[in-house]
């Protein structure tokens, strides 16, 4: 039991925040007064500064309350509009209707956002209901939905690049105001929803204990839950429709309130919105203060940067002893025979042949010359798919977690983060960035290992750490895109997994890497097999835990770095291929590695082929295509594992 904190503890949290906030406010105000004449500074105050301040207060309250309600209903301290994918859903609904179906706009953006949020919440519910709404899987599904929504958004932006700057400044969460209209529109509904949530204070507090005790006390659990969720979803949609996606607040405000020792829910209900308002004001004033002269730093991106470390800190504190690691599942009845292997190899060869020879081309094309450009892409996709697939097998085996993959654990994101930084800082071409990619993935893996040790390698915690890393790299790339750097378009294109930049030497180098590293993985069979029996068993059988784990993870890091550099961080091939391999009967480690490599290669070759031909002469990135298939596949797997 945590010892009770002294009564003045809430003050200790709130007071410094209040001081920071007041200080920044004062600084920004002096700036306005300093650089303007009296009448214009009045103008700025009334039409820009004060509305923005009011907006940050209202939006902060709404976001914090939404976070608190989600957390209370789902009994999960990590729930908030951004992590549940609700904000992404609302956002996607808006931008998709703007670009694809402007006729829908007669319903008003707020209603569209609301519809998107409700659909996302429904989807989320359908996907997790079979597992009894287990806390971590809710977040897991939510964050995958969020990633998925954001990658669809990226496609929309890539194909409509005239909207680029506007869509990005919108999505990045900007509180900038030029009048009172938005605040006025937001004020009444938010006040109403806050009032409604106060009415639910008592039943919600009882639900927080347990469903059983709540229903014995005469609370209709389902109704209260639904009502609270509806309020939270509505709040998230309202805020998203006005200012875009802003994470962190819904997470931080309830956490800080709890941390400061406010235990009763009814009191949390009062303090959390207040703290949320304070937090968002502080973040927003900070964003205004450090905005460069030639631009505007979006508040949402800044809060995204702040939220990743906070989530990691909360994850460290969180103890979930009730969650057993997801079982790997019994060996399937089918056997992977030599005949099947033959078929698979044949299929791969056929796939390569199709990718090389069966394409949409202009009439006067000389095949020889076209092949000259085609083979590096096909070979690169093949090697990348194979490497990521084997990395997936290694990680899934090592962590005993069928949900693990280089993409979901954030290893790919780690390496792409460093690649992006290296391109920006050192101005290196992508072909020379393997060291940076490797360093990134090794860093990500060490971080994972550190968290893994604390949480006893609990699968879902690991995936959450990975998703935090992914979010961090996304926030950074948003900032980069907003900066108007001419390299941004190239990097955006790479990060969606385009194979166009793979030249002959790069493809050969990647193929060599695959040929070297994949057999190395096969050599690790004894360690991996023994480790998957459990750490205690492995140790009694004479496996050095630390050394073997480190070697396995390092190899996985190298494989991931190689693959990510070719097809970007979001391909999901490292998740799908191992699963498919097991499903088709390759259950033993070596067989799984080999079959996964073949399958991963096949998948990426097909994705590359589709991407080159679907919208010809326009390209669709192979990595993005495989992610668009991979994410639903992952959600399906998760749903199925819950049913079992």
């Amino acid at each position, binding site marked *: 039991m945590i010892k009770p904190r002294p009564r003045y503890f809430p003050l200790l949290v709130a007071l410094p925040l209040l001081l920071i906030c007041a200080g920044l406010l004062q600084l920004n105000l002096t700036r306005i007064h300093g650089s303007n004449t009296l009448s214009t500074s009045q*103008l*700025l105050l009334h039409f820009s500064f004060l509305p923005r301040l009011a907006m940050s207060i209202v939006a902060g309250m709404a976001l914090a309350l939404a976070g608190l309600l989600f957390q209370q209903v789902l009994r999960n301290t990590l729930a908030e509009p951004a992590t549940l994918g609700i904000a992404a859903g609302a956002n996607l609904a808006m931008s998709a209707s703007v670009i694809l179906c402007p006729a829908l*706009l007669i319903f008003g953006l707020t209603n569209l956002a609301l519809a998107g949020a409700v659909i996302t919440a429904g989807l989320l519910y359908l996907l997790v209901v079979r597992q009894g709404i287990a806390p971590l899987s809710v977040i897991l599904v939510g964050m995958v939905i969020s990633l998925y929504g954001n990658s669809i958004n990226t496609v929309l932006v890539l194909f409509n690049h*005239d909207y680029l700057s506007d869509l990005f400044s919108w999505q990045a969460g900007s509180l900038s*105001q*030029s009048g009172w209209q938005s605040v006025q529109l937001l004020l009444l509904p938010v006040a109403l929803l806050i009032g409604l949530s106060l009415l639910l204070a008592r039943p919600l507090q009882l639900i927080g204990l347990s469903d059983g005790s709540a229903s014995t006390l005469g609370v209709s659990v389902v109704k209260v839950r639904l009502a609270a969720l509806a309020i939270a979803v509505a709040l998230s949609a309202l805020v998203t429709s006005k200012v875009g996606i802003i994470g962190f607040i819904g997470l931080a405000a309830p956490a800080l309130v709890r941390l400061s020792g406010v235990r009763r829910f009814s009191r949390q209900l009062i303090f959390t919105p207040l703290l949320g308002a304070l937090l968002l004001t502080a973040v927003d004033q900070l964003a205004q203060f450090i905005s460069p002269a*030639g631009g505007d730093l979006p508040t949402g991106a800044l809060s995204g940067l702040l939220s990743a470390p906070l989530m990691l800190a909360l994850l460290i504190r969180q103890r979930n002893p009730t969650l057993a690691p997801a079982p790997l599942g019994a060996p399937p009845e089918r056997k992977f025979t030599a005949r099947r292997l033959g078929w698979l190899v044949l299929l791969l060869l056929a796939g390569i042949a199709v990718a090389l020879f069966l394409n949409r081309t*202009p009439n006067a094309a000389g095949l020889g010359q076209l092949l000259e*450009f085609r083979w590096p892409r096909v070979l690169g996709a093949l090697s990348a798919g194979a490497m990521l697939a084997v990395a997936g097998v290694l990680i899934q085996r090592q962590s005993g977690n069928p949900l693990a993959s280089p993409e979901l654990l954030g290893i790919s994101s780690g390496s792409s983060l460093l690649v992006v930084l290296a391109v920006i800082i050192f101005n290196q071409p992508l072909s020379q960035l393997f060291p940076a990619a490797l360093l990134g993935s090794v860093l990500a893996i060490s971080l994972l290992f550190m968290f893994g040790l604390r949480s006893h390698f609990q699968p879902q915690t690991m995936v959450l750490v990975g998703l935090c890393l992914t979010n961090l790299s996304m926030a950074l790339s948003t900032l980069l895109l907003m900066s108007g750097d001419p390299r941004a378009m190239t990097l955006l294109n790479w990060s969606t997994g385009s194979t166009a930049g793979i030249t002959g030497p790069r493809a050969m180098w990647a193929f060599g890497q695959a040929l070297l590293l994949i057999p190395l993985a096969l050599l690790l069979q004894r360690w991996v097999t023994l480790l998957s029996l459990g750490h205690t068993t492995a140790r009694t059988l004479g496996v050095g835990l630390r050394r073997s784990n480190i070697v396995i993870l390092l190899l996985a890091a190298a494989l991931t770095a190689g693959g990510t550099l070719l097809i970007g961080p979001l391909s999901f091939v490292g998740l799908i291929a191992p699963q498919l391999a097991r499903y088709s009967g390759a259950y033993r480690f070596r067989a799984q590695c080999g079959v996964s490599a073949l399958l991963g290669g096949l998948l990426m070759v097909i994705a590359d082929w589709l991407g080159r031909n679907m919208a010809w002469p326009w390209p669709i990135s192979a990595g993005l295509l495989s992610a668009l298939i991979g994410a639903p596949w992952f959600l399906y797997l998760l749903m199925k594992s819950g049913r079992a």
Partner: protein
Amino acid sequence: MKNPCFSRRDCLKVLLALPLMKISSSMAAPSNHRIVAINWLAAETLLSLGITPLAVSDTAYFRRRINMPALPAGVLDVGPFWEPNIEMLAALKPSLILSDFVAPALLDNLRRVAPVQVVTVYPAASDVWQSLAVFTNQLGQQLNVPDAAAQVVQRANAAIERCRALLRANRVQRVLVMVRSQDGKYATVYGRNSMVDAVLHQLGMTNAWTQPVSAMGTANVGIEKLVSLPVDRLLFTELPTTLTQVSRLRQGQGLWQQLPIVAQGKTHEMSHFFPFGGLATAVNLAQNITDAILGAGDHD
């Protein structure tokens, strides 16, 4: 002593003329019918020179952003400028590719298809007007149409001269040209070494935006930054997209209407322009600016 037949100067003249003769006769200059312009500035300049490019990147959007000179219907689309379709390019067998600064790997691929020339007018290191004229002349020389190029430059200068003459009576000094964002809260402004800046100088006015800008010569700033900016005339435009309608749904225009310059009625809407275009776009912009200022003069 003087050589009766050839002076040294004559010899040099012949020597100088030699490469030109060779190009025109035997060595086959790049065929002007097989040029691919991935860079839009190059595409526009080619059209001005009377040369129809074989293919251009993102033709649909090109037609929306640059309508003068018009892109003929037969010009092929080679995909987006950041990833042109290399297979299609290879099949087209162009004689010259005028490219943007794309990723080095892509550039290598392009080089294997045809000679590649990277167009580097933007981001501009010096005066854009000058660079555009130089670029046009160079392209004319290279493609064997130096007269056409000289004519384009001369016509552009004449057009600017006309606009300047028209504006002379109108003592407008500091002009701000901006693109309003679709939600009306931001403005894209153009600073030093942008096309807008160059055109304003050519017209004998000054650019009101003197604050820092990005490498491409633009800055995306909040509307509130315009409150205390010393401006005589504000010319704004919007991107031709559907989002413009959305903006009205999303955000009122409270601050915009309160801006001193707006309240005094010194703002004019003008038709949109492509900020990284060539001489033709620059001349169009100059005429738009002139029309906007003069048209407004009638109302004052």
